[in-house]
Structures are given as structure tokens and as C-alpha cells.
């Protein structure tokens, strides 16, 4: 064997490519992002389908922490609200084993929301802005419809899936994501329902109102009120994910046939909160 005179000069780019890897990176990252979105979408849909199968008892057990959390300063008003909600629950055909518990909070911002375990939270400000029982019943029936449709547990399932997928991608420990979701479930969080849920709840609420009063007059008051407040920067949660007030008013108007039907006055304990239109300061609602 004879030694070579010189070292060979092999061509570049055989053992290592002469690319920056940026294109490869973008392709892989985009592929991963698409995969994550598809997986999330599939899981979210699955979670929303499966969530209503969770027994209501379990849902209530998860939300047990709520009950001592809210101590109403207006027990009589709360009881009156509860009585109205119970009547509406009958009108709404709430299934056997499900029940609604109303809580009255002392916030001035008009708002109401349903959360896990059939808990419905109503603010004092809401009662104070409404002039008739029918208007209040519309809001309550709307929240009862959310409970009936199992919207809180569906929304929880959705946010649990999203935060789990996010945790898996970002490499965080999956456990903290689960704890975060389930931890917030026990609190009175405003779960975000999507617009389809809201429309379905509106429809069911109008049906319940018709079943209870025989007409749906007065149902639009709260939405008209929201429409007026549109310029207000107050954090009204009902406004954000809900359909536009005008749209909802139109939907109500389509169903209102008996114009001029008599409206029920608010029960006395609720009127004491400033409802019923009499003691409401005119400047507060703008």
C-alpha cells in the first residue's frame, strides 16, 4: 500500500447540509401548531359532548365550596328570588334530581350568572335595575336554562381540555394545569359560555316564561337596559360572550304576541333593594 500524497478534499454539503435550518424549523413548528389545534378542537368537541353525561350530583360535589362562600345580606330578598326560581324551574321542566340555588350578592353592577352545581348568582344591582317580576324572571329563567343544558360543566370541560393541551405543549407539569382548572371550579367563577349556548338559553327562558305567565312581555327589559349601558365601560360579564342585545331583543319581539299584557310587580322584599322602578335614581342608568 502506498500512502496518498495529499488529503482528499471532499465536496461540502454531504455530511452536513448547508441550510440554516430556519425553513425546517418553521415547517415543523407550523405542523406541530396545526396538530395541536386539531387535537384541541377534537378534544373540546368531545369534552362538550361528554360533559352532560357527568351526573349532576358530581357537579354539585365539585361546586360544594360555593355554598358557605356567599352569605346574603338580604335573606328575605334571597328567599323571594329562590321562590321565583323554584317556580321557573318547574316551568322550565328541570329534570328530576336537578335543582337551582340562587345567591344574592351585594354588587352594584347588574349581572347574573350560572355556575357549577346549579348555583345561580344574582347581583343586587340587577334586581335594582329591573322594574317587573317578568324581567327578573327572564334573567333567572335564562340562568336556569344554562343549568338545565349543563352549560357550566360543558364550559369547564372545554377550559380543562384547553389548559391541559397548553400544559402539554409548553412542557409544564400537567398536574398544575388540572389543579388550576378544578381549583377554580369550586369558586364562583364566571364560566364563559359560547353564543350557541346563550341563544339556546334565551329560547328556553322564553319558553319557560310563556309556560309560567302565559306571555313573554317584559322579558326584554334587561337587554334593553344593557343596550343603553353600551357606552359604559363597566365590566359587565353578560355583555362580552353574549349575543348582541339588539339581536336578543329582536328574538324576543318575534315571540311577543300579546302586547300590553299585564306585568307582575316585583315581590316586596326585592322592591326593597331598589327594584320596581320607584326608588331608582334616574341618573344611575345611562
Amino acid at each position, binding site marked *: *500500500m*502506498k*500512502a*496518498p*500524497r*495529499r*488529503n482528499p*478534499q471532499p465536496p*461540502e454539503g454531504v*455530511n*452536513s*447540509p448547508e*441550510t*440554516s*435550518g*430556519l425553513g*425546517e*424549523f418553521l415547517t*415543523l*413548528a407550523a*405542523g*406541530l401548531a396545526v396538530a395541536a389545534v386539531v387535537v384541541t378542537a377534537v378534544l373540546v368537541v368531545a369534552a362538550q359532548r361528554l360533559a352532560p353525561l357527568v351526573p349532576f350530583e358530581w357537579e354539585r360535589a365539585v361546586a360544594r365550596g360555593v355554598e358557605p362562600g356567599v352569605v346574603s345580606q338580604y335573606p328575605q330578598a334571597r328567599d323571594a328570588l329562590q321562590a321565583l326560581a323554584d317556580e321557573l324551574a318547574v316551568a322550565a321542566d328541570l329534570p328530576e334530581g336537578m335543582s337551582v340555588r340562587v345567591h344574592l350578592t351585594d354588587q352594584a353592577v347588574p349581572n347574573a350568572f350560572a355556575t357549577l352545581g346549579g348555583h345561580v348568582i344574582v347581583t343586587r344591582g340587577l334586581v335594582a335595575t329591573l322594574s317587573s317580576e317578568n324581567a327578573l324572571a327572564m334573567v333567572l329563567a335564562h340562568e336556569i336554562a344554562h343549568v338545565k343544558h349543563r352549560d357550566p360543566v360543558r364550559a369547564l370541560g372545554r377550559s380543562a381540555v384547553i389548559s391541559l393541551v397548553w400544559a402539554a405543549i*409548553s412542557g409544564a407539569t400537567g398536574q398544575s394545569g388540572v389543579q388550576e382548572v378544578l381549583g377554580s371550579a369550586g369558586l364562583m367563577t364566571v364560566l364563559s359560555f359560547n353564543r350557541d349556548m346563550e341563544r339556546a338559553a334565551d329560547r328556553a327562558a322564553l319558553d319557560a316564561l310563556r309556560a309560567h305567565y302565559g306571555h313573554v312581555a317584559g322579558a326584554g327589559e334587561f337587554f334593553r337596559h344593557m343596550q343603553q349601558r353600551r357606552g359604559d365601560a363597566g365590566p359587565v360579564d353578560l355583555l362580552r360572550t353574549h349575543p348582541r342585545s339588539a339581536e336578543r331583543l329582536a328574538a324576543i319581539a318575534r315571540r311577543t304576541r300579546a302586547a300590553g299584557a299585564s306585568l307582575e310587580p316585583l315581590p316586596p322584599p326585592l322592591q326593597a333593594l331598589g327594584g320596581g322602578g320607584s326608588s331608582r335614581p334616574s341618573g344611575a342608568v345611562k
Partner: protein
Amino acid sequence: MELILILVLLVVGFVFGRLAEKRHYRRIRRRELAYRGLVVVPARSPPREYLHHDSELVRGNVVVSVDYFKSTLAMLRNLVGGRVSAYESLLDRGRREAVLRMQEQARQFGADAVFNMRFETSRVSGNAGSGLGSIEVLAYGTALIPKDREGAAS
């Protein structure tokens, strides 16, 4: 916030890693040309014409670090499989640099050639956890030095 940090690390890793790699390849090519005459042979026994040379162990050792961009790219590549080009260039640079350093040492001994050249590669993971931190490449061989020229350059 976490995402911004990751993006900044990616950009820093990409810019500096790319600059370092380009510069390194330029230097490697220049020196490979300069050392073309110092023959490196992987054969186990010395060729006949070197039978009357003295021999000496020569080594070239290199440690190269992977940058954040490359390791992220490799991590993404891990998911789908395929050619991990990000690490190929890293190892290519490491091997060629190691050979060059070995040749440099051989030249200092005044050698004509290096035979029985071998590579060793190991991982210097440091605190990179399970990922690849840095790589170490060692090239070693037997320098063949003409008897009359031994120690000439030292």
C-alpha cells in the same frame, strides 16, 4: 411571558449559532487547504515509505456547544423523525476541527503524515438535562516523523 422568553432565546440561538457556524466553516476550509500536504491515513499499519520514521501520539480535541435554536429544532425533529440536520453540521464541524488540531500538533512535531487516525465522541451534557448540551470530539493518531527532522519545530 414564558413564550416571549422562548422566542428571544430562539432568536439569540439562531443569530449567534448561525454566525459562529459560518465563521467556523470558513476557518475549517482555509486550514484544511493549508494542511492538505500533511497526510492523514486511517490505516492501522504505516505504509512502506514511512517504515524508517519515528512515531509520536498526536491528538486534537474539540468541545462544541449546541445552541438553543438547534436543540429546539432537534426536539421538534424528534417528534416526527428524520434527518437531524441541526446536529449533523455540529458534529461535522467538531470532527473536522479535531482533525485539524491533530494535524497542527503533528506539524509542530515536524511530521510527514499521521496514520491510524481514530475518533472518539462523547456528550458533555452539563446542566442540559436529558438534552444534548455540548459534544466532545477527540481525534488521535500516530504521527510519523522523519528521523533527521525530529523536534525541528519545537
